[in-house]
C-alpha cells in the first residue's frame, strides 16, 4: 500500500520519527516559553544549557562512573543551579529594560559556554552509550523502533504535562502567574516574588538540561549540538505563541511531524519547512497559534 507514492511502512515510520523529534522540540520550547512568559527574557542561552546538560551526563559517566538515571536528575539540578546564579547576578539587573538586553546578554553567555566546552573537549564530540536497560529495539512491523527513542517520548511528554499542570492547576502556579501580572500586589500579600522568578528561570534551564541528557545517547555530545537546534526551537515558540505553555508543547510535537514528513517528500526542504510555517503563521496570526492577541 502506498500513501502519496510513499510505501505506507515508510510513511508510518516517518510519522513516528517526527513525533520523537517533536518531543525534543516540545520540551525545549516549553522551557523557553516559561522563561519568556513569566520573566519576559528571551533566553538565547537555552541551546547552550541543553548542551551543558548533555555534557554533565557525559562527564559524570566518563570521569565518575555516574550512570544515566542519576544523570537524568543530577544534570538538571547542576545546570539549573547555574541558571539560578546567572539570574541572580545578571538577568535580574535587566528586567526594567527592553527584552533586547536580555536577548543580547543570554546570546553572549551562550557563545562563552560553547567556547569553553569547545576548548576543553574539542569539536568532534563524545559518545554516550544508551543505558543498558533501554538498549535494543522492537519490530513494529513497519519499522524497527529503538526502545530508547520510545522512552524519550514518554519521558518528555510526562515532564511537559507535569509542568503544564504545575503552572496552570496548582497554587504555586497561580502565584507565579499572578506575580508576573502584578508583582506589587502579590508582594503585598506576603509572597516573595523575586524568589519565584529566580525559581522559574532555574526550572526553565533545568528543562533544557533534562532534554540534553535525553539527547546524549542519540547524538554525539558536542559543543555545537545546542546552537544547531536553538533556532528551530525559537521558531516553534513563535509559531505556538510566545509564552504559551500549551502552545509550545502542541506546536513542538506538530512541527516534529511536519518536518518528518518533509524529509520523505522533499528532504532538501526539511531544514527550512519550520521557518516557512513560521512566516505564514506570523502573517496570519501574529500572536502565534496559541498566543493571546495583543
Amino acid at each position, binding site marked *: 500500500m502506498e500513501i502519496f507514492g510513499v510505501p505506507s511502512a515508510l510513511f508510518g*515510520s*516517518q510519522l513516528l520519527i*517526527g513525533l520523537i523529534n517533536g518531543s525534543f522540540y516540545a520540551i525545549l520550547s516549553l522551557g523557553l516559553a516559561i522563561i519568556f512568559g513569566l520573566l519576559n527574557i528571551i533566553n538565547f542561552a537555552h541551546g547552550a544549557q541543553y548542551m551543558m546538560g548533555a555534557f554533565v551526563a557525559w562527564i559524570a559517566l566518563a570521569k565518575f562512573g555516574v550512570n544515566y538515571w542519576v544523570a537524568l536528575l543530577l544534570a538538571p539540578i547542576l545546570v539549573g543551579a547555574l541558571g539560578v546564579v546567572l539570574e541572580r547576578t545578571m538577568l535580574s539587573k535587566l528586567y526594567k529594560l527592553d527584552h533586547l538586553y536580555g536577548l543580547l546578554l543570554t546570546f553572549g553567555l551562550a557563545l562563552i559556554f560553547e567556547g569553553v566546552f569547545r576548548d576543553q573537549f574539542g569539536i*568532534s564530540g563524545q559518545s554516550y552509550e544508551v543505558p543498558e536497560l533501554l538498549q535494543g529495539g522492537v519490530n513494529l512491523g513497519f*519499522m524497527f523502533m529503538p526502545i*530508547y527513542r520510545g522512552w524519550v517520548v514518554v519521558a518528555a511528554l510526562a515532564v511537559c504535562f507535569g509542568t503544564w499542570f504545575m503552572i496552570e492547576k496548582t497554587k504555586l502556579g497561580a502565584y507565579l502567574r499572578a506575580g508576573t501580572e502584578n508583582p506589587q500586589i502579590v508582594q503585598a500579600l506576603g509572597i516573595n516574588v523575586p524568589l519565584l522568578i529566580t525559581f522559574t528561570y532555574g526550572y526553565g534551564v533545568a528543562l533544557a538540561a533534562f532534554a540534553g541528557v535525553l539527547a546524549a545517547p542519540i547524538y554525539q555530545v558536542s559543543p*555545537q549540538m545546542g546552537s544547531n537546534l536553538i533556532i528551530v526551537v525559537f521558531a516553534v515558540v513563535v509559531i505556538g505563541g510566545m509564552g504559551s505553555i500549551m502552545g509550545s508543547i502542541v506546536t513542538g510535537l506538530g512541527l516534529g511531524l511536519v518536518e518528518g514528513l518533509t524529509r520523505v517528500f522533499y*528532504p532538501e526542504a526539511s*531544514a*527550512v519547512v519550520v521557518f516557512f510555517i513560521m512566516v505564514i503563521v506570523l502573517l496570519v496570526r501574529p500572536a502565534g497559534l496559541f498566543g493571546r492577541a495583543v
Partner: protein
Amino acid sequence: MHMKKRLTAICAAAMAALAGGAHAQISGNTVKIGVLTDMSGTYSDLAGPGAVLATQMAIDDFIAQEKPTFKVEMVSADHQNKADIASTKAREWFEREGVDTATELVTTSTALAVMKIGKEMNKVVLMNGPASTPITNEQCNDVSVHYTYDTYALANGTAKAVTQQGGKTWFFLTADYAFGQALEKDSSAVVTANGGKVLGSVRHPFPASDFSSFLLQAQASGAQIIGLANAGADTTNAIKQAAEFGITPKQQLAGLLMFLSDVHSLGLKNSQGMYLTTGFYWDRDDQTRAWSKRFFDKQKRMPTMVQAGQYSSVLHYLKAVKAAGTDDTAKVMAQMKKTPINDFFARNGQIREDGRMIHDMYLVQVKKPDESKYPWDYYHIRQVIPAAEAFQPLSQSRCPLVKK
C-alpha cells in the same frame, strides 16, 4: 706568505659574495609561513591547532637538520571556514607582512579563494585540509599544491574496495552542498565502474543532527551498502543512529570521508568494521609512530592525515627553498615538483604539473573494540593503494596546465 694572504682574501670575498648572494635571493632573509585554518569550528579537531603545531614542528626540524642561513617564521589565523575572511587575510599577509606561502586551508571554498590571491600575487599555496577535486582540475594554477588527499582518492579507495568485496548495491546519504555532491558523484562513478549499482540517494540538509528519517529511507532501499557522502558531525551522528535503528550490521556503512578524530570521538563500538581511506595512519611503521608520538606529547591527540600532511608539505617547501637558494615562487615550485617526496608521511610522493601531490593511500578497516590493544589503536591497514592508482590520472585531468 703573500700568496697565502691573497688566497685567504679571495676565499673570504667569495664566501661573502656567496652568502650575500643567498641573502639577496630570499626576501628579508626570512621565509614566512602563514597557516590559515579552522581554529574553532567544525574542522578544528582534524586540522586547526594541530595543523599549527605540525607546521611549527616542521620549521623546528628544518632548522635543526638543515641549518639554513635564512630565518623561518610562522604566523597563523582562523579563517572560520569563510572564503571572504580567508582571502582578506591571505592578501594582507602577502601584501604587507611578507608571507611567502599560505598553507593548510581546510574547507574547499577557502582554498579556492586563497588560490586566486596566490596566483594574483605570485605566492605559493599549499593545501592539506580541503578535499574537492576542482582544486587540481578546472581551478588549478601553477602556484598551488594539493597535498594530502582529495574526493577522487577517497572514492577510489573506499567505494572501489567495498564494491569489489561484494557490496554491489549502494544508497547514498549525501550532505546537500558542493562537497557532498562531488563525493557522491565520484563515488557513484567508481561503484558503477566496478560492477555495482546505485539504487538511490537522499540529500540531507547541512548540517543535520537527526538522521533517523534518512536512514530509514536508506534501509527501505534494501541496498547492501549505505555510502555516507558527508563529513564531521554529520557522519558521526549518522553512524551512531544507524546502530541505534538496527541498520548496521544488516546493511553496511561506508564512510567516504572520515578522519582519525571522527573514529576517536565515535568510539570503536559504534564504528567497528567500517572501511575508510586515509593518506596517513600514525601506527603504520616505526617512522610514523616516532613522529606521531612527538605530536601526541604536545597535542594529547594522535595526528590526522591533514596534520601529518601539513608537516610534510611545509618541510618539503622549506627544503625546496634551501635547495633553490631563493623564495622566488616559480623557482621554488619547480624545485618542489622535481624532488620526489619520501618521508614518514608520503611514500613515492610526487607533485604533478596540475599541482596534485600523488602518494600511496591506505584502505583501512576500523578495529573491533577487543582488537584494540592500546590507546588510539584503531585501524587495520587492509590495502596500500599505490600513488599511481590512488589519484585521478593526468589523462583525465581538466586542468588547463596539463598539456594533452
